């Protein structure tokens, strides 16, 4: 079976601005795919293209096996979409919002909806416009999980939420969306790191890399070289070593293609006088920051 989400050279221009550029993305079935990238990288635009909210300038995308431009009632009944800046029917109460949406979904599960409302501690009789940001997001999530969608798409769901709400949100998502494919874009890398199975890094509309979370964690290492005296930096620097820093007799960099044997050999070749070498595992946030800064430097150069 094909992947729930698959794009082919997907591009979107806003006049002369390239928001998304020839994006080739594959989200495997059952994965929790985190789409990360700096502000303005094109994450939200990509998701809106996938959801047929925006129309692509070029390329194409398939969502649940259907051309995204042809997504309609049957597909949306299998998709749960929550966005930080979605306009909700503010005049509806939580209860009415859920009961209004119920007939749209053949697979709506009343017990699950009830459970979600209780778990999120949503005030049933309060209008959506009177809910806090966190509560609104929870209401949106509850309304998007109650029909057990095959695909959940979350666009910056954690923005503006406090830590407690984020935890509750994530916990419910994982509990209620087993066997569901989840695509999530977020800045909250620490949160995502705890549950994402795959990650894609998008920058200036380009997908810089996409891979499994474990592989990514294995691939990135912060390398710390200690010398007896400050060493001269080599004229040629491997492209995979980013963000080099020197501090007295210590050289640090990030190896974006870490392989213990190869990296050790390269270090010995380039720094024969090195006294000690330390490899540190990196968090997703550290990787993200490193890539973002490296990208900025490359652009400035």
């Amino acid at each position, binding site marked *: 079976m094909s992947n729930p989400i698959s794009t082919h050279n997907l591009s979107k221009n806003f006049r002369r601005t390239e928001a998304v550029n020839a994006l080739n993305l594959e989200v495997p079935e059952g994965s929790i795919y985190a789409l990360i990238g700096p502000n303005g990288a094109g994450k939200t635009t990509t998701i809106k293209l996938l959801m047929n909210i925006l129309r692509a300038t070029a390329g194409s995308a398939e969502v649940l096996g259907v051309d995204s431009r042809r997504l309609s009632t049957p597909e949306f009944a299998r998709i749960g979409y929550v966005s930080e800046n979605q*306009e909700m029917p503010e005049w509806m109460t939580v209860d*009415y919002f859920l009961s209004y949406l119920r007939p749209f979904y053949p697979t709506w599960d009343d017990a699950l909806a009830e459970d979600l409302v209780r778990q999120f501690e949503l005030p049933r009789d309060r209008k959506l416009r009177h809910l806090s940001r966190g509560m609104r997001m929870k209401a949106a999530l509850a309304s998007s999980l109650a029909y057990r969608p095959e695909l959940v798409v979350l666009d910056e769901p954690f923005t503006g939420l406090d830590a407690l709400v984020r935890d509750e949100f994530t916990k419910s998502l994982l509990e209620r969306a087993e066997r569901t494919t989840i695509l999530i874009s977020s800045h909250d890398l620490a949160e995502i790191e705890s549950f994402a199975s795959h990650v894609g890094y998008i920058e200036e509309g380009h997908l810089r890399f996409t891979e499994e979370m474990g592989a990514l964690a294995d691939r990135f290492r912060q390398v710390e070289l200690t010398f007896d005296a400050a060493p001269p930096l080599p004229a040629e620097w491997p492209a995979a070593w980013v963000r080099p820093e020197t501090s007295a007799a210590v050289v640090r960099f990030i190896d974006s293609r870490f392989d213990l044997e190869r990296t050790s050999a390269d270090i010995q070749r380039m720094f024969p006088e090195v006294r000690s070498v330390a490899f540190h595992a990196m968090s997703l946030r550290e990787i993200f920051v490193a890539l973002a800064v490296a990208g900025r430097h490359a652009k400035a150069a």
Partner: protein
Amino acid sequence: MRQAIHIFRKDVRHCWPYIAGVIAATAAHAWQASSEASNPSGTVDMSGALLALLMVLAWWLAIGAAVHGESLVGDRQFWTTRPYSWKSLLAAKLLFVAAFLMLPLLISDYTILRASGFNPLGPIPGLLWRQGWFLAFLILPFVAAALTRATRELVLAGLVFYVVAFAVLASLSIPTVGIGITRLGRPSRIWDFAPWMMPVAGFALIVWQYARRRTFLVRAFSIALGGLAPVVIAMSLGRMASSVPFAGEDDPRYRNITVQLAAGSGQANPVKVDSQTKGWVSIPLKFSGWPRDLANCLVSGVDTTAPGAAHARTWASGVAVRFRSSTTNGGCESIGLSIDDPEALTSKNVDLWVSIYLRLYQRQATVDIQPERGWTRVPELGTVRWLEDAHLNGPYLIWRTALKPGTPGWTYSLSDGKSELVTDAEWPGAGVAWPASPAWFAISPVYSYVASGLTVVHASVAHAPIPRPLVLTTKRLVATLPRELKIPNVRLTGDETR
């Protein structure tokens, strides 16, 4: 359909203040119009105009509220990623319009028609046509709502459209009917359908926007269509006004009607110039081939041509020439010309062309009017009421037509049994040939006309008791014919000249 009804129920719950506003404004309008029908004053009622304005505003706001419930503009609406069917969504909005805008107006129409003396269930096709026109009228706010996000944008769009449309219509020159000329018949079938072009195109844009949500493109087309609307309206009105003036020319019954100069009693030249008024010329005419069933004729236009100039038939020479017709049963007997600038024509002998625009009428119906009974139905015209206690100085007639304006081509006479109080007054007055639709659209289903024979009524019966019943006779225009007469070598000076 189930989803459409589900969305409709949500809209009812959400838009109830707007629904209440529409129903209140419509009820107030029905009450006001019914009251006015029961006790007509013949004067312009400002409260009626204000209520009409309120109704239009209520319609705009209600449609805006319903459509904006699932806004079609933008990329953040919750519903766009829910399993909505665009057909169900559009159907829900149309259902809303039918239930809370069209149905109240239909009930209001029933009430007003009944109060105005019409059988409200009689003109059912007309009522349905009127609903169709009303829906067409609502296409504009519907399009505007489908292309805006909020009420203030919608109201702004409406204001801009009306101001621009008014400005364009005001700046366009719409041809008008010549003085005294009634256009019989319609210019072309296409003008029956022309008024529908805009709403049909507007509805197509609505469908496109609901199906594809291509706001930018649909806005561009809507602006183009909006700009075109006043032009099409102006062209339609112009076409109506300048419609083909003749009908019945080929009818064998009228083909033999001829006109010639009636020979005076032994005079060589029967064309006479009044020595006192100087400018008045009397031309005795004699008609032949007159069908027996014709009631009478009216001569409605004359042209004179300067010597040597090309002759043009305009029948609108009201500035240079005034005309007076003498009508009696059986036809036209003479015609008089009043020349404004006689000096131009009196210095030498001239050729005089008389182009005659003949209107032939047949008697249709005779009805008794009993003022104390209120409205009297007049076949094919509408209802009429005789009023004596109005603010105007004396009694007068007020006419009403149902569902569409009165179509020109009628005259009526009013008699008290002894003498005529009104003689061959045009009904409903000067106007245009409307498209052949069974209904037209205005806020009220009833159109009122104060009798054009008012001055005659005043002169005859002001402040005098009128014998009852009054007898009203209607005559229908059956043909309009051109006839021409050349009177060569006339010298328009002196009491009698040739």
